[in-house]
């Protein structure tokens, strides 16, 4: 596989704030790569260095074997035609129709109108807006506006699509449809997609690989599958955190961290094969142990099944430690939440 984007030794500061701190990142052609982090983590700056909307103070940006950081203005403008970008707030021209909005990058490249027309018809079919070509952006829903923006970004047949919080302003339904469209574009055209988001859910649904960013640094770069193999993975923690439902308040009230009784409350994380094995019922039978399942959730991430269980045991300390040993042997992660002080809730 070919390297499409190579970022080496990027450093950028705004005054005293360091936005990028020694970033090294290599992206393959055709992959969907997600960068996740809180606002202010520097992910937006990082995304903008790929097309040099932000120029790093130090370091090199190479896109498709072209060193962007050493291009002239004129050459950089040419290179940008091959890097599409979409934004959180769509950034469409409100004075122009859907058709003219999509035509804009091609008119800037001075393509003949006949060719533009054909390309737009193709794109409108792709984003499923053929009936809206004469509408103005104010007549469209958020999801439709983002579809227009995607069509516009694809109009110059780019090799890369940069997505800046592309679904953050959308409702869940539109988010879903945009993510499906991005996935389709990646598969159909082999375009490399880089997206930044603060939602793990977006990364989980379409990305092949992800990076976690904080204070200008990449804390972790991993494939979505690889995340589960690494017990110290921050991404795994985030995935599980997203999976775990909040404990109901009635349960929290009767929870004591140091009561040391026979009713411990445990949270168990599992993934892969362990998720499908009947661990609880086997253990219950073999140890003659009462296990009370209070909450459970399960999900599939890039083909890996993962889940969370919150259980209450009814066991003396000796039985408790035997249970924990079994969990360890089965590669489950156990988190001790406390002891239930009123087992009759």
């Amino acid at each position, binding site marked *: 596989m070919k390297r499409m984007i190579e970022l080496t030794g990027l450093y950028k500061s705004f005054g005293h704030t360091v936005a990028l701190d020694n970033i090294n990142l290599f992206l393959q052609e055709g992959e969907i790569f997600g960068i996740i982090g809180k606002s202010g983590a520097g992910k937006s700056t990082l995304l903008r260095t790929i*097309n040099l*909307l932000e120029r790093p103070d130090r370091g090199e940006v190479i896109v498709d074997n072209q060193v962007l950081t050493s291009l002239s203005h004129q050459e*950089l*403008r*040419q*290179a*940008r*035609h091959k*890097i*599409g*970008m979409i*934004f959180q*707030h769509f*950034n469409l*021209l*409100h*004075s*122009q129709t859907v058709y003219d909005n999509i035509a*804009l*990058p091609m*008119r*800037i*490249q001075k393509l003949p109108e006949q060719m533009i027309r054909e390309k737009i018809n193709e794109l409108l079919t792709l984003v499923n807006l053929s009936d809206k070509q004469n509408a103005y952006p104010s007549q469209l829903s958020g999801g439709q506006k983002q579809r227009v923006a995607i069509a516009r970004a694809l109009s*110059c047949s780019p090799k890369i699509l*940069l997505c800046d919080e592309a679904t953050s302003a959308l409702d869940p339904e539109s988010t879903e449809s945009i993510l499906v469209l991005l996935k389709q574009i990646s598969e159909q055209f082999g375009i490399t997609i880089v997206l930044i988001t603060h939602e793990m859910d977006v990364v989980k649904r379409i990305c092949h690989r992800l990076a976690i960013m904080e204070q200008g640094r990449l804390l972790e770069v991993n494939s979505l599958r690889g995340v589960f193999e690494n017990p110290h993975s921050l991404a795994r923690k985030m995935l599980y955190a997203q999976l775990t439902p909040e404990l109901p308040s009635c349960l929290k009230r009767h929870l004591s961290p140091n009561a040391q009784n026979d009713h411990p409350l445990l949270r168990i994380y599992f993934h892969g094969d362990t998720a499908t094995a009947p661990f609880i019922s086997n253990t219950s039978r073999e140890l003659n142990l009462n296990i009370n399942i209070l909450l459970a959730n399960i999900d599939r991430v890039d083909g890996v099944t993962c889940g969370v269980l919150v259980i209450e045991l009814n066991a003396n300390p000796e039985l408790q430690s035997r249970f924990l040993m079994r969990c360890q042997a089965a590669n489950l992660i156990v988190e001790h939440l406390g002891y239930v002080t009123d087992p009759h809730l």
Partner: protein
Amino acid sequence: MSLTLIYDLGLATAETIYMVVISTLGAVMLGLPLGTLLFLSKRVKPHPGLARFLSAIINISRSIPFIILLVALIPLTRLIVGSSIGIHAAIVPLIIGATPFFARLVDNVYQHLPEGLIETGFSMGTSTWQMIRHILFPEALSPLIQAITVTAITLVNYSAMAGTVGGGGLGDLAIRYGYQRFDAKVMIATIIILIIIVQLIQMIGDKWSHKGN
């Protein structure tokens, strides 16, 4: 009202309209590039030195009251038109007075465009000229027309002042009859005509600005 007076009123109205139309055109032709350049030097192709310089020029010329500018510019007017009285002579200070005003309005219009538009333009690989032609102008067209309307109405006001130093037009007439001869009828007639002119300019401006949207 005597026939001569009606003739005088008609002539003065025509003169006012002429001064307003020509000086509005002049202010737009000079102020649009000036305001656009100011905005470009701030946001599109940052050049802090140029931005400060343009901003200073605009502020300085805007801080001079028009009536003073009118007098101060007499030598320049004489140089350009060959005379310092008459409606042609009035047009020089009118344009010079309205240009920085309009330029500032133009800069404001661009600044109120959505934040991400310029970045979007850059991401498509636009040149500075393409940014103006394909993004700034089309998106700003409607508020730009409103800014021209405001400028034209300000020029109706300025043209009356220009009249007082021998420029002709409705201002000149109102001063001569209304103030110097205590003829209230003429005064009221000029006020009514001025109100009608301003209303018309606003109506036309609103209509065009709506079309541009």
